[in-house]
């Protein structure tokens, strides 16, 4: 048992910091500082810098462009990047479809897609959820009917993040309507510019536009865009979702949130003292910090021991999403009456109105509402608890 970072890890952290000092663009740092929402160009700008350094897909196998880092190093990397407020690397290409392609794709698919994922020349989005199929993903109804060398796809996807930016979408589609739920599903790559694809924005309570509905009307997709075998898509989706879950504890983000929270709690005052010295607020904040500490250690414990059991990703997802919510909830509490003015628009880069209150109050209520999604997406808290109890009790 040794709970300290090795000197190699410390060196690695310094290397990452040096890179960030040198390469993280000032304009993105300024956006992060002012809590201005990142847009497509911001993501691409940063991803191309990472790609140039060779750090865009560190967890990929080395042969495909990965870095061969240890889990602890991957964790340090994530922490340092979120620590400076870097835009998160869009997961759809790098974390989600990329591994599916290099694991199950044909050589042609690998050659065509992987380089453009690494270079951020393709912006991907994910077409899994449907209006009637949220947590119960396997009940999806979008159909793909084979006609010659093409599939004809009809259906609707929902909650598609950044579809408005996307060049490509990877979809689960039903290729065998008669098979049992999970058995008739295939994994298809679709060009967003194909005729019949349309995107409708969904505006969320926080006042932002990230998610969308994607409509697919007689969209013709070449059969070479099928990944793996027909009707085996559920297996690839499960593989993909297990990758999605491990990153979702969001420890880097929580630490960044807490740093901001400390700053706010030092600035805001109650009864003549900084809020961080107010006994009630301090106790809440300390409890949150202790939870962050526990999550971080548990994450490292899982990474270094491989996890005691299949329930660890769920354990991290639940606690992580709770803390991602709790930290912005305390940020909102910290600003008191300034949680009331609604300044979501002030988070847009194009906005030029008169802000209310100091910089740090603007994003508080919108961010609170935005974060409610973390216990819903990527397998809701309820679904994760089902998984944990199933592991414990059998089923």
């Amino acid at each position: 048992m040794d709970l300290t970072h090795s000197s190699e890890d410390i060196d690695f952290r310094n290397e990452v910091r040096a890179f960030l000092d040198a390469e993280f663009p000032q304009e993105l740092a300024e956006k992060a500082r002012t809590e201005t929402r990142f847009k497509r160009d911001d993501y691409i700008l940063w991803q191309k810098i990472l790609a140039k350094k060779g750090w865009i897909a560190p967890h990929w196998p080395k042969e495909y462009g990965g870095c061969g880092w240890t889990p602890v190093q991957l964790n340090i990397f994530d922490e340092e990047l979120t620590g400076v407020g870097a835009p998160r690397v869009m997961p759809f290409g790098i974390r989600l479809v990329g591994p599916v392609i290099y694991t199950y794709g044909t050589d042609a698919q690998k050659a065509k897609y992987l380089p453009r994922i690494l270079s951020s020349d393709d912006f991907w989005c994910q077409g899994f959820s449907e209006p009637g199929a949220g947590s119960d993903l396997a009940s999806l109804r979008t159909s793909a009917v084979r006609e010659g060398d093409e599939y004809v796809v009809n259906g609707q996807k929902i909650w598609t993040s950044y579809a408005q930016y996307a060049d490509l979408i990877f979809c689960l589609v039903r290729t065998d309507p008669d098979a049992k739920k999970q058995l008739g599903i295939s994994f298809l790559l679709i060009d967003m510019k194909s005729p019949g694809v349309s995107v409708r924005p969904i505006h969320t309570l926080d006042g932002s536009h990230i998610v969308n509905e994607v409509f697919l009307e007689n969209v013709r997709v070449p059969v070479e865009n099928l990944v793996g075998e027909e009707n085996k898509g559920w297996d690839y989706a499960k593989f993909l979702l297990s990758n999605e879950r491990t990153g979702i504890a969001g420890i880097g983000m929580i630490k960044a949130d807490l740093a901001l929270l400390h700053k706010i709690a030092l600035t805001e005052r109650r009864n003549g003292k900084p809020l961080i010295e107010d006994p009630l607020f301090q106790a809440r904040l300390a409890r949150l910090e202790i939870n962050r500490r526990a999550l971080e250690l548990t994450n490292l414990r899982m990474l270094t021991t491989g996890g005691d059991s299949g329930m660890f990703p769920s354990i991290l997802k639940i606690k992580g999403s709770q803390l991602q919510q709790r930290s912005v909830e305390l940020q909102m509490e910290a600003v008191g009456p300034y949680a009331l003015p609604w300044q979501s628009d002030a988070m847009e880069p194009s906005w030029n109105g008169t802000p209310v209150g100091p910089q740090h109050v603007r994003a508080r209520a919108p961010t609170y509402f935005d974060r409610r999604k973390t216990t819903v997406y990527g397998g809701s808290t309820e679904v994760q608890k089902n998984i944990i109890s199933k592991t414990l009790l059998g089923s």
Partner: protein
Amino acid sequence: MDFSYSDEQRMLSDSLEKLFTAHNTAAGGGTAAQADKLWQACAETGLIGLTVPEDHGGLAGSSADVMVAAIQIGRHAVQAPFLSTAVAGAGALRLAGSDAQQAQYLPALAEGALKVACAFGEPDARYDLADVDTRAAAQGDGYVLNGAKSVVFGGDDAGLLIVSARAPDTERHDQSGLSLYLVDADADGVERTAYALTDGRGAADITFNDVKLPATALLGAQGGGYDIIEAVSDLAAAAICAEALGALEKVIGLTKEYLGTRRQFGKTLGEFQVLQHHLADMVLEYEHMKSLVYEAGALAGSDDTVARQQAVSAAKVVVAEEGRRICQQGMQMHGGIGLTEEFQLGQFVKRVAVADFAFGDADHHIARYGGHMARAAAAAFGETEGHHG
């Protein structure tokens, strides 16, 4: 002991139900013209003059009547400035206004011709109503006002502002240095930044730069402002708790409906025991909150300051804490759809979020309640010494 609405209260509630349904308030604030039309209709039903004395054209209603109205306002997500004008504004004028002041302002208020906003909060004061840095200096027959107020409910389009300010020679937190002043919102030196709150209603930050006030601008006794400020703030707190109660009724109703219809894994969501129990928890807390909101409504206008503060703080703590939890649970059980602008859950959830942080947050009210509790305990048992020695 009677927890049911009186006949008059039932009529008031029913008429507002009809009015707000007809104006489709739940669809949002609407255009300025629609908002004006609604405001006039509210005036005609007597809603705006609800607590105004009869001889000034009002209904002379009680704080319990305000609660009855506010529940409907919450249920229908009404964005009209009822709280600022009819509760706080009318309350301050009633409690502190001279006969002449009441006669001058209250009839116009009740008719819907004059909107009023109470400007008590300041940028650095958090929820401490005595933490006032705005100063009113005597000048000739009148005063000159300098300072800044923040997050003034209804401050965006009020014609009359009721402003707390202190005598220049008093210290920052000194309660006895505070007075209230009536300020024409269009007077020279008044500048406001208007904006919408989270739930869509209007508010403003307002600065006063050498604003000249006549002698008649003083509302109530010189130095006697603090008790009025607290009393008015409690009226507003009780009313916003009632609004939240109405909004929470909708949150629960929508969730119940969703659980009954949405299917997943071959069942309705309502067949999953975990979701059943979440709903039961929401209702359990809602019913207890309801009792406290009723009590706050009944006592918000009471002369017994301690009883009033205890009842209002109790309701406010539970509305803030359990109200937030109910909304979180409601959003969670709706999944993605509950987090969209399109679906109506959001506006009720946002209504409750405003009640969470307006007129004192949970920490503010738990401390006020706790202070009364500790004093009462000490009085009942007497101060004691260390016991183990």
